[in-house]
């Protein structure tokens, strides 16, 4: 392994709609090294690699390729330069063969006729070179996720990639498959190919990475050879920011009365054997990594998908919530993770959205009462201080924070007993965040019970009475108020520690 650098990003700055998410980040990758990029969700890792791949434009800063300043403005250019990215969602076309996928867009041809045999042979050789025995004529659809990953790597290598970016490659494959992947990575490393490796699993970082860069809140907080770090120091660097004071104080803590009790909730391939009790006026947090099964669990709880097993009791009565309608009738509310695609009708105006759940309640004989609608909607707009031009403003035109408040308004109008909030502050600026925290706090104070899913640990610490951490669809542990720390959540979430 030489010390020659292959890529250097310097002082990269990037903003999305006036919110800076990268505040001058630098990253250097040397030839033939595996460089781990670590950080919490939202720390700016994916934005940084997107900038490198030309999927996002950088606002400031410079990128050097083998010492020469370059500008990459689209993924095609990145590929020609020698960069390749393997996304978490793989980019293969299922009904084409392995060979066709590997040569998609640069087919071997004679005139306008694809030379399939030649292509198959070349694909087979490329696969063999990274130690893979796969039949190039097989359709990609029938491959396992891990095999698809390998095909993508082989494709990247055959493109002449010299730096391969891998985004959480082991998040959806088994232990044994991960080991095979590491073997391939080591093999390619020996040939001078470099990797940027993004993962939340610290063990494998120590196993595979030569050097590490750690991001937090869009700034680089640590960089160095792997041997200079241990697990604790990494976790500290990743999460060790101070709690900001915008978490409101709640006076009366939760009461004893159990509002919702769940036993053995399971759904195939999503989550297994989840059990918890939610008390009146309690904010119960759910922590974990993205994809730990939290969203899937609450969707099933809310009747949007079916549970394979488990029991749910509301106020001591066993219930079967098979549709969102029955969940709503039982006074549940779900503020979903994906505000734009699940929470709102962006083509509808503010009033339509606020009234969507309660339209029937405020109607007579199936006819809506415009006057009443207007009153109810403006009341909610005032109550949540939603900043909107008018009642007829399209929700698609509102800012993220205000959109989220519209979703909240829609559900609060139905006066729910139990509110499920799935990443309620994702992608929202700091000011609106504080307002939403206050709203949630007020609701708890009024005796509503709240399930609060968040991947931002300070939020869980600041808001929750208790936190349940999920890891790969299972309960990794429960933390009571006093014991909630970022380190503990992180350790449970990444599966490095199993408590109790």
């Amino acid at each position: 392994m030489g010390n020659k650098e292959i890529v250097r990003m310097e002082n990269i700055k990037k903003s999305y709609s006036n919110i800076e998410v990268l505040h001058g980040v630098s990253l250097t990758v040397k030839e033939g090294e595996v460089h781990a990029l670590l950080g919490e969700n939202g720390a700016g890792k994916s934005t940084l690699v997107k900038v490198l791949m030309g999927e996002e434009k950088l606002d400031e800063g410079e990128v050097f390729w083998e010492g020469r300043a370059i500008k990459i403005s689209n993924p095609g250019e990145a590929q020609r330069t020698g960069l390749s990215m393997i996304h978490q969602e793989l980019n293969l076309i299922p009904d084409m063969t392995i060979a066709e996928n590997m040569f998609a867009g640069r087919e071997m041809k004679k005139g306008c006729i694809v030379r399939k045999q030649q292509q198959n042979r070349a694909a087979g050789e490329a696969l063999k070179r990274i130690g893979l025995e796969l039949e190039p004529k097989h359709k990609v659809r029938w491959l396992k996720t891990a095999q698809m990953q390998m095909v993508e790597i082989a494709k990247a290598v055959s493109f002449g990639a010299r730096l391969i970016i891998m985004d959480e490659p082991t998040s959806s494959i088994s232990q044994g498959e991960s080991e095979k992947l590491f073997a391939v990575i080591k093999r390619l490393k020996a040939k001078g190919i470099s990797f940027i490796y993004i993962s939340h699993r610290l063990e494998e970082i120590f196993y595979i990475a030569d050097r590490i860069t750690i991001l937090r809140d869009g700034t680089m907080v640590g960089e160095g050879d792997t041997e200079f770090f241990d697990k604790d120091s990494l976790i500290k660097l990743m999460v060790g920011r101070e709690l900001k004071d915008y978490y409101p104080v709640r006076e009366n803590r939760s009461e004893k009365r159990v509002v919702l009790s769940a036993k053995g909730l399971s759904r195939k391939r999503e989550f297994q054997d989840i059990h918890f009790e939610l008390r009146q006026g309690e904010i119960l947090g759910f922590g974990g990594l993205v994809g730990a099964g939290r969203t899937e669990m609450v969707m099933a709880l809310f009747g949007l998908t079916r549970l394979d097993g488990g029991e749910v009791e509301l106020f001591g009565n066993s219930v079967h919530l098979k549709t969102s309608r029955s969940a709503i009738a039982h006074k549940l509310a779900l503020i979903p993770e994906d505000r734009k695609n699940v929470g709102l009708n962006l083509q509808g105006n503010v009033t339509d959205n606020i009234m969507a759940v309660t339209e029937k309640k405020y109607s007579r004989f199936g006819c809506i009462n415009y006057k009443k609608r207007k009153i109810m909607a403006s009341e909610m707009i005032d109550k949540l201080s939603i900043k909107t031009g008018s009642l007829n403003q399209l929700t698609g035109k509102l800012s993220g924070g205000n959109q989220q408040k519209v979703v909240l308004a829609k559900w609060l109008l139905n006066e729910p007993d139990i509110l499920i909030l799935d990443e309620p502050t994702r992608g929202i600026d700091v000011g609106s965040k504080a307002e939403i925290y206050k709203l949630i706090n007020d609701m708890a104070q009024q005796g509503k019970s709240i399930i609060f899913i968040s991947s931002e640990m300070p939020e869980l610490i600041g808001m929750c009475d208790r936190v349940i951490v999920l890891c790969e669809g299972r309960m990794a542990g429960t933390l009571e108020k006093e014991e909630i720390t970022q380190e503990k959540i992180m350790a449970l979430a990444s599966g490095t520690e199993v408590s109790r």
Partner: protein
Amino acid sequence: MKYKVMAGLKKTSIFWALLLLVIIMSILSPSFLTGRNLANVVKQISINGILAVGMTVVIITGGIDLSVGSIVSLSSIVAAMFAVANSGYPLFVPVILALSTGVLVGLFNGAGVAYAKFPPFIITLSSMTIVRGISLLVTNGIPIFGLSDGLINLANGTSLGIPNLIYYLIAVFAAGSFLLNFTVFGRHLYAVGGNEISANSSGIHVNFVKLAAYSISGFCAGLAGLLAASRITSGNPTTGEGYEMNAIAAAVIGGVSMSGGKGGLIGTIIGALLIGVVQNGLDILGISAYYQKVIQGLIIMVAVFIDIRNSKNS
């Protein structure tokens, strides 16, 4: 202020286009702007207008109904079968049966979309062909003539000096407008078309809304078929061919978004009128029907293009 005026103009651009066209036509031909001719225009568009109302309801949910033209033919035949002068059934029998035929096919389409999860284009394309086939089968390809005066009078009569057809159109338009703008169901139609997933998680019965939307379109087509039978005084298995395209055109010209969740009936009716005025005007001017087709296609293109531009700018 100036901006607001501009925005208002843009929003109603299709209305101004219609007005402009009427002015141009009345300058070009003195016989255009006569009460009689205008009544004629509305009469001509009434069947398409009724279909377009149902079509709009379906398109608002994000779907499409290609079967309406075929429904027109089948329900015209059903009406004719039970209204031949010597059959002896009272008038309400063919009326009810023709309407039911439309609703039945609509229910079939709706069930296919909502519960069997067919893409709307596919299921209504299938039923378009199936229903047309049934029309040909039951008549053996031969039109049914000899309808009772009662049925013939439905569409061809006049009340207070105004053709009956115009009343039907106004009634359907008024009922549709009420449904879309003043009922919970109307709000749900927009919610489903705007974002089905969000609608479902808000507790809206998405499948029922879709089923109902296609049934409404079927009902409109059934009514159109009944009126068509009356108008041409026969039940004809080839009638209504291509009507679905005119209905879609009217909705699209009127600003109804094919992706769902946007648009309304005022636009659709103006769209239908625009098509009618162009046809009538070109007829008066003696321009060949071939040109009419080209011009109608161009109008759709221009109308939608303006729509795309406007929604991009705002």
